[in-house]
Structures are given as structure tokens and as C-alpha cells.
């Protein structure tokens, strides 16, 4: 490959990484939540709260790290509300999740009123010593902010947790058959609480990435539907972390490549491209219901259903 093509491709790949990272965070959290049998449709709302609170704290304290942690805790706080309502009071998970999104849109807008119009420098990139000096690859792989590196670690950790740890096995059991897990003495509600909180933390970090690194500012409703794409992504990935990572980069890549196609003057209807993640998800949903054996094996059997030990 000649150097001219490389100087073009590297920045394109860098923008794809930036577009995919928030999707990875929000979706990997939701994947674990759904694996425990809980469907939290409030991802968008949790992301927004993460975005506004991380931006506020980073702006006031000047500490990016503190901002990220605040975003994480804000997402967890939202998830806690959801968990209490659905797990304790056994309200409908679908309705509660939708309400959480609407609540998040409103409350983040209220909290963010005094933050509008404030600029923030953004998360600093971390140059990994030696490696970041490698031509091309160094720029592509070893010059990102901490959240980009973290997203890969997180996906690997979730995969390892689900496939290779006893706790992961318990979580999957809770998601597939809470009655059986309960009968074996596992604390179904507690497991689901922890999973939901983890999902909230990831959504919060995803929001923090948006307001601190992706487009470092606060504006109302700045997630612009990425929480919904993350939800679609979990289904698209058939609840497998590896496929989820692939899907996030695919969805992110489609977004960026269609922008490039337009700038090159290639006439692709951009509306069609915006639609693609959802079309892909519908196709996967159809495949799931067609092929019960292979794909359905990964889907948590009790998803969306409330559990009570005396049922």
C-alpha cells in the first residue's frame, strides 16, 4: 500500500474507533444485564445522565478522571432506580425502562442548563511509550484516550466472566431459569441487582465518552439515539461479546463510511445508511426465531420476566 492511501485510511479508521467506542460501552453493559434476564430499555436515559454529570464534574474540578467516575456513578444511580422498581416492586421491565429513558432526557436537560455553551478540552490521549512511535500502527492503535483502551479490556473481561468464571455461570443460570437458580440456592434478585448496576455503570461511561471525548460539550439529548442502537446491537450480537465488538465497529464504520461516500460525491441515500443498524437487527431477530437451535442458545430464556421466589 502506498503512503498516500495510508495517510487517508488511518484518519478514517481513527474516526471509526471514535464512533464505535460509545456503542461498545453501552452495549456490553446491556449484554450482561440481559444475560441475567433483565431487559433495561433505559440505556439512552442512563447515558444522558452519565454525559451531563461527568461533563459537569470534569468542568468544575478540572479532573477528567473524576468526571468519568461521576458519569459511571450517575449511570449506576439511574440503574438503581430501575432495579428497585422492577426487581423489588416487580413493575414491568419494558415500561420502566422506557420511563427511565424519558426521565433521563428530562433530568439531564434540567441539570445541564448552566453547562450549555461551555467548552471543554476533552480527554487527553495516552501515548503508549515506544509502541506509539511505530509508523502507522502506532497512531492507529497506541494513541487513544483511556476510554478507548478500556472498551477492549471491558469486552474481554465480560467474555471471560461469562464463559470462564463460576459467577458468570450463576448469572447465566439466573437469566435462563431463575426458578432453577433459586431452587439451587442462588440469590436471583441480588445477581440481577448487580448486573443491572453494572449495565448502568457502562451506560454512564458511554455517556461520559460522548460529552468528554467524542464531542466535548454538553447539549441536551446529545446521545441522539445511540442508546437504542446499543440495545439493537446486543440482539445483533446474539448476546456474544466478541460479536458485539464486531457489530459496534460495523455500525460505527457504516456511519463514517457513508459520510465519506457523500464527500466523495458517491450518491448513497444517507437515510438508507442511518437505517442499516436497525435493518441488520431485524434480520438477526428473524434468524433467531428461524434457527432455534444455534442462535437461540445464547438468548437468555427468562429475559424481561419478573421473578418472585413464591411464584
Amino acid at each position, binding site marked *: 500500500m502506498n503512503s498516500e492511501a495510508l495517510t487517508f485510511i488511518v484518519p478514517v479508521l481513527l474516526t471509526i474507533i471514535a464512533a464505535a467506542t460509545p456503542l461498545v460501552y453501552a452495549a456490553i453493559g446491556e449484554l450482561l444485564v440481559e444475560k441475567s434476564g433483565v431487559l433495561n430499555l433505559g440505556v439512552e436515559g442512563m447515558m444522558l445522565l452519565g454525559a451531563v454529570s461527568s461533563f459537569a464534574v470534569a468542568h468544575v474540578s478540572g479532573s477528567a478522571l473524576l468526571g468519568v467516575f461521576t458519569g459511571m456513578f450517575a449511570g449506576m444511580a439511574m440503574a438503581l432506580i430501575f432495579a428497585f422498581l422492577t426487581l423489588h416492586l416487580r413493575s414491568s421491565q419494558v415500561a420502566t425502562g422506557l420511563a427511565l429513558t424519558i426521565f433521563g432526557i428530562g433530568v439531564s436537560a434540567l441539570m445541564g442548563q448552566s453547562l450549555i455553551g461551555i467548552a471543554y478540552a476533552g480527554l487527553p490521549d495516552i501515548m503508549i511509550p515506544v509502541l506509539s512511535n511505530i509508523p502507522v500502527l502506532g497512531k492507529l492503535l497506541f494513541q487513544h484516550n483511556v476510554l478507548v483502551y478500556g472498551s477492549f479490556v471491558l469486552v474481554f473481561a465480560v467474555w471471560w466472566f461469562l464463559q470462564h468464571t463460576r459467577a458468570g455461570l450463576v448469572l447465566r443460570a439466573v437469566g435462563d431459569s431463575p426458578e432453577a437458580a433459586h431452587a439451587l440456592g442462588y440469590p436471583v434478585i441480588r445477581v440481577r441487582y448487580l448486573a443491572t448496576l453494572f449495565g448502568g455503570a457502562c451506560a454512564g461511561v458511554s455517556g461520559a465518552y460522548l460529552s468528554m471525548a467524542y464531542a466535548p*460539550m454538553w447539549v441536551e439529548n446529545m446521545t441522539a439515539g445511540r442508546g437504542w442502537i446499543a440495545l439493537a446491537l446486543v440482539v445483533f450480537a446474539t448476546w456474544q461479546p466478541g460479536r458485539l465488538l464486531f457489530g459496534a465497529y460495523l455500525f460505527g464504520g457504516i456511519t463514517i463510511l457513508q459520510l*465519506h461516500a457523500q464527500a466523495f460525491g458517491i450518491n448513497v441515500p444517507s437515510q438508507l445508511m442511518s437505517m442499516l443498524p436497525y435493518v441488520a437487527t431485524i434480520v438477526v431477530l428473524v434468524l433467531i426465531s428461524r434457527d432455534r437451535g444455534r442462535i437461540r442458545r445464547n438468548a437468555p430464556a427468562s429475559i424481561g420476566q419478573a421473578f418472585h421466589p413464591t411464584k
Partner: protein
Amino acid sequence: MFVFGSTIKKTAIAIAAGVLSLGAMSVAAADKTKVGFVYVGPVGDHGWTYRHDIGRQAIEAEFGDDVETTFVESVAEGADAERVIRNLASSGHDLIFTTSFGYMNPTVKVAKDFPKVKFEHATGYKRADNVATYSGRFYEGRSVIGTMAGMMTKSNIVGYIASFPIPEVVRGINAFTIAMRRVNPEAEVKVVWVNSWYDPGKESDAAKTLIDQGADVITQHTDSPAPLQAAQERGVVGFGQASDMSAFAPDAQLTAIVDNWDQYYVDRTRAVIDGTWSSQDVWDGIATGMVDFPEYGAGVPDDVKAAADVIKNGIIDGSFHSFQGPIKNQAGEIIVDEGESISDEELLGMSYYVEGVQGSLPK
């Protein structure tokens, strides 16, 4: 608490507006003139709705206790809008500004039932005895920034981030391109459509895409400061949209096209107080200050400032028209002869690109 302290008053207003929109009528002081606003977005969008709300605040600053203003934000265009407008009309408002194109039919419909209430609809074309329309000639601003872009670009590629292919946006692209090529016939415009008025992430991606493809000047017809922020980060320059965005891009912002409704809103409110209000159609631009500019950025060379000022002054004294011939279409054929210019009617329905814009217009 920094987040809540300054917001209590606004929250109270928002709650009052919310209560109104739910149908519970508030008690109105009879001698006060009440002015209502319906916004399509949140006041915090830092763009379109934000500037309308600054206009509302200008009314409050001008008339103080003689006037009471109300706003209802994030009102969806459609059935919801009619309900909100009707509630404002029946709760004693004397003057109601409906600030989005999609409010046109509901505004006219409600106005029929409330002949004594005055309505002002932004960017529409349906009028009645108690319905006036108003809009800004933002394309005039695009002639100014197009001139600057033509002089500033070294790569001769200028990136344009566009929202939806409607005449308002297409008109802006064409006005920009015509002005740019008057000063730099080699320069071309690359357009990227993001299909949103407001998606900071996607707008930022679009800006980076254009910069990666060689653009060294970026302009936008979307509402967030994200493209300008991306320009700042990558060391290229651009223009603010709807409001002054220099806080986000102190080096990158050359200037901005600012929507300034303040004077218009104050004037129309005064007309209602004086009893001189009548229906009209206003399409004002730089000359009346409805299209406004902040100070030039620090990096703008003197000759570029001078050239931009020539365009501004020409528009004000009438010697310059953004769509003055000769104008060529993308095929290079002359569509407007020298000495002629495109009429307002044609501008309102513009649906083609002029020479110098790359790609084809999405249908």
C-alpha cells in the same frame, strides 16, 4: 449547587409552561400584555431555539413588569402543537410566536378561533388578519462567509455539513458557493448531509470526514458547535451557526451567522401594546440586523475582513444581491444572466445546486 442554583427560576417557568400545556389555566393579571412562545427544540440547543429564547428575554428586558412572557419548549410539530397553541391563546396571551415551520397549519387553525389574539409564525407562508409571518434571509450571511472561505482556503476544498435537503438549506449552500467562487473560481464545496438538525456526534464525524478529504475550511447548516470544535482540534477554520460559538473554537471560528430576533420581537410586542399591530410578511436580513455577526476571529487577515465588510455593506445599501447573475448550474450552463437576479419566489423553492458544488442533491 452549581447545577441547580441558577435554574430555579427557569424551572419555575418551565413548570408553569408545562402546567399550561396540560390544560390547567393560570391566572393572568389583566393589565399585563402576555406574550407566548412555542419552541420546537429545547432552549438549551445553543442554536435555533436558543436564539428565539434570547429574543424572548429581550422582550422581558425591554418592558419589564408590563409584559409577561411564557414559553413551551420541545413541542412536536403536529397535533401536539395545536393543543399547546390553543392553550396559550385561551389563557389570555395577546401575542403568540410559533417558531417553527411545522407549526404553520395549527397556528392558522387556532388563529381562526381567536380573532383577538395576534399570532406570529416563523418561516411560514400562510397569513391571516391576525397571523403575520417572519423569517431571516440567512443566505445573505452565507454570502459573507462564502467570500471569507474562498479567500482563506488553500486546498480549494471547503466542507459543508448540511441537515436536510430543503430549499432553506440548498439556498444557503448556493449563496455560499456563488460568493466563494467570485473570489476564488478554483474552490469547490463538498457537501455532507447528516439528516439531523442536531446530533453533535454525527456532525463532528462529518466535519472530520471532510477534513480528511482535504477541506481546510468547514461550514455548517446544523445547530451544534461540534463541527467547529472538530475544526479547532484539527487546526482548520470554520464558521459558527445561529449563535456565536467562539467559546468552543477560539482559534477556528472566523465569524458566525447569528440569528437575531431581539429587535423584531420587541417591535412586535410594542405594536401590540400600542394597538398598531397588523398582519405582515417580513423577510429581513443583514440590513435590519436580523442576520448578525460577532467580531471577526483573531486569525482573520485584514484583506479578508475588508472583503467581507464590502459584501455586508453592499447587502445593506442594496448594491449587492446574493443571487446576482451570471449564475451557472452544475452542468456549466448559465441559468441567470448577468444583470439579473433570482426572485424571492424562486429562492423559496430552490432545489438545485449551482456550479462549484460537488455531488448531486439528494431527492
